[in-house]
């Protein structure tokens, strides 16, 4: 597996996140909950802690957009690319963008926001893609029940290599 060259990582364990806008596909509280649970995937196994802010800048800024959405990395309409995120760093570093030409859902019929967000936040924290089938950081989307989701070993080992284990 790989991490970004030079392995950029956050030099702090308390990170802030901000949801800049919402998809019309889901009630806001479902989006809030999916984002919160996706961050917990990583805070459950490392010393990282995430706090939501509503004003001012934050480390991880989360937004929905279509086609060109302000970062010079346009989305491609329905299907294809679902989302992308930026490795740790100032400014756009850590931010995660979701393609609102997808149909975001909480159940398995469409693209599951929790699963995609958990993957993207892996990038926001410094992980690159894994070619291990079944790993959360595998680049291709595949649905699984978010209620029973457990972070695969490959991902857990890689994120703990960056930030260490969660203090008991």
């Amino acid at each position, binding site marked *: 597996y*790989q*991490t*970004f*060259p030079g392995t950029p990582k956050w030099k702090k364990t308390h990170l802030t996140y901000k949801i800049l806008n919402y998809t019309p596909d889901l009630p806001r509280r479902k989006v809030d909950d999916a984002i919160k649970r996706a961050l917990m995937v990583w805070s459950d196994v490392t010393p990282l802690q995430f706090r939501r802010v509503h004003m001012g800048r934050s480390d991880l800024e989360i937004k929905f957009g279509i086609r060109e959405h302000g970062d010079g*990395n346009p*989305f491609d309409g329905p*299907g*294809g*690319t*679902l*989302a*992308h*995120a930026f490795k740790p760093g100032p400014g756009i570093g850590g931010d995660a963008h979701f*393609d609102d030409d*997808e149909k975001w859902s909480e159940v398995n019929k469409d*693209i599951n926001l929790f699963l*995609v967000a958990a*993957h*993207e936040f892996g*990038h926001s924290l410094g992980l*690159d*893609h894994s*070619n291990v*089938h079944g790993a959360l950081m595998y*680049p*291709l*989307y595949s649905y699984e029940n978010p209620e029973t989701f457990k972070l695969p070993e490959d991902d857990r080992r890689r994120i703990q290599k960056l930030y260490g284990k969660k203090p008991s």
Partner: protein
Amino acid sequence: FPVQPKTESWNSIDLEKVKGYLDKFFPILAKTQNLSIEERIKEMQRFFHLTVTGKLDTETEGIIKMPRCGMPDVAK
């Protein structure tokens, strides 16, 4: 002279789309690299544990059509 192998006629995915996919997810990391499209398809097939043929066979085409993350698969 040996007859140049005719480039496989590309399946329903046209060559431009394949190149766009490879440029986005398997970018050529060094200007000095001058890889053929077959070599670049092989790199992608190795990453996804496919049969490494350098050709746009059905399983490779299937991968290209799957929904995915927009970040590259090879670290710059």
